[in-house]
C-alpha cells in the first residue's frame, strides 16, 4: 500500500525538479533503496553480533536473511543509480567518483559473504565465520555513507547536509513516503524469507526423526 502511495505521489503529485527535470524522479526510489540496503546490512551485523555475544538462537539465520536482502537492495541501488547517472551525467558509471566505487566495494564485500558461508559445512563453524565477516563488512556502511558528503569530486549530488534536506516540502514528504515504503517492503520480505528458512529447518529435523 505504501509502495502504491509512493508511486502515486511521485508521478501525480510532486513537481518536477527545475534542474534535472523528469529524470530526477529516480531519486525517490534510488535513495530509499540505498538507505534500505544500509539498514539491512546494519541489521545483519547486529544479529551477527548477537550470535557471537549471546549465542541467541536463530540470530545466525536472521543475519543471513538480512544480508541477503541487503545485497538485493544493493544491486537495485547500483542499477537505478547507473540509469540515473546515464540520464543526468551521460555515463552509466564513473570510476572517478569515490562514493560510487565505495558502494560497489560494499556490495561486492557482502556478495562474497555467500561464497564464504557456503564454502563452510553447516554448523557452528559456518555461523561463527559468517558472523565475523558480517561484522567486518558493516564498517564499510558509515564510510560509504559519509563518502558522499566528504568526497571532493561533487559529481554525486548531496541532498541531505547539516542544514537538513535541500528540497521543497512536497519533495521531502514524497521522499519520506518512499523511504517508509522501501523499509516496509524490506521488512515484509525479511519476515517471509525468514519464515521459509525456519520452516525448512523444522522440516529437515522432522525428516530426520521420521527416517
Amino acid at each position, binding site marked *: 500500500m505504501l509502495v502504491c502511495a509512493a508511486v502515486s505521489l511521485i508521478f501525480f503529485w510532486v513537481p518536477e525538479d527545475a534542474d534535472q527535470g*523528469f*529524470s530526477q524522479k529516480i531519486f525517490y526510489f534510488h535513495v530509499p533503496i540505498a538507505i534500505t540496503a544500509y539498514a539491512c546490512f546494519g541489521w545483519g551485523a547486529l544479529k551477527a553480533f548477537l550470535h557471537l555475544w549471546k549465542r541467541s538462537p536463530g540470530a545466525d539465520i536472521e543475519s543471513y536473511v538480512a544480508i541477503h536482502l541487503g545485497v538485493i537492495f544493493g544491486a*537495485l541501488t547500483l*542499477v*537505478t543509480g547507473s540509469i*540515473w547517472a546515464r*540520464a543526468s551525467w551521460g555515463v552509466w558509471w564513473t570510476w572517478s567518483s569515490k562514493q560510487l566505487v565505495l558502494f560497489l566495494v560494499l556490495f561486492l564485500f557482502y556478495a562474497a559473504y555467500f561464497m564464504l558461508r557456503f564454502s563452510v559445512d553447516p554448523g557452528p563453524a559456518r555461523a561463527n565465520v559468517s558472523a565475523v565477516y558480517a561484522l567486518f563488512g558493516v564498517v564499510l556502511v558509515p564510510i560509504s555513507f559519509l563518502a558522499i558528503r566528504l568526497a571532493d569530486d561533487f559529481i554525486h549530488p548531496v541532498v541531505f547536509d547539516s542544514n537538513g534536506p535541500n528540497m521543497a516540502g512536497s519533495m521531502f514528504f514524497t521522499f519520506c513516503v518512499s523511504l517508509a515504503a522501501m523499509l516496509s517492503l524490506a521488512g515484509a520480505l525479511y519476515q517471509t524469507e525468514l519464515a521459509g528458512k525456519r520452516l525448512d529447518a523444522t522440516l529437515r529435523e522432522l*525428516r530426520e526423526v521420521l527416517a
Partner: protein
Amino acid sequence: MSSGEKYVAAAYLVVFAFVLVYVLIIGLKLQRLQRELAELAARARARRLEEEEPVERPEVTPVG
C-alpha cells in the same frame, strides 16, 4: 516519450521486476515446503497406524 521519461520508466521497471522475481522465488519455495510437509504428515500418519494395529496372538486351545 522523452529520453528522461524512458530512463525513469526503465529504473522503476527494474525495481518492480526484481521484487516480482524475488516474490516468485519465495512463492515457489513455499510451495515446495508445503509439498514436503504434506509428504511428512502422510508418513507420520502411516507410522501411527502401524503402531496402533493390534498384535495378532495365536489362539490357545485347552489341552485334556
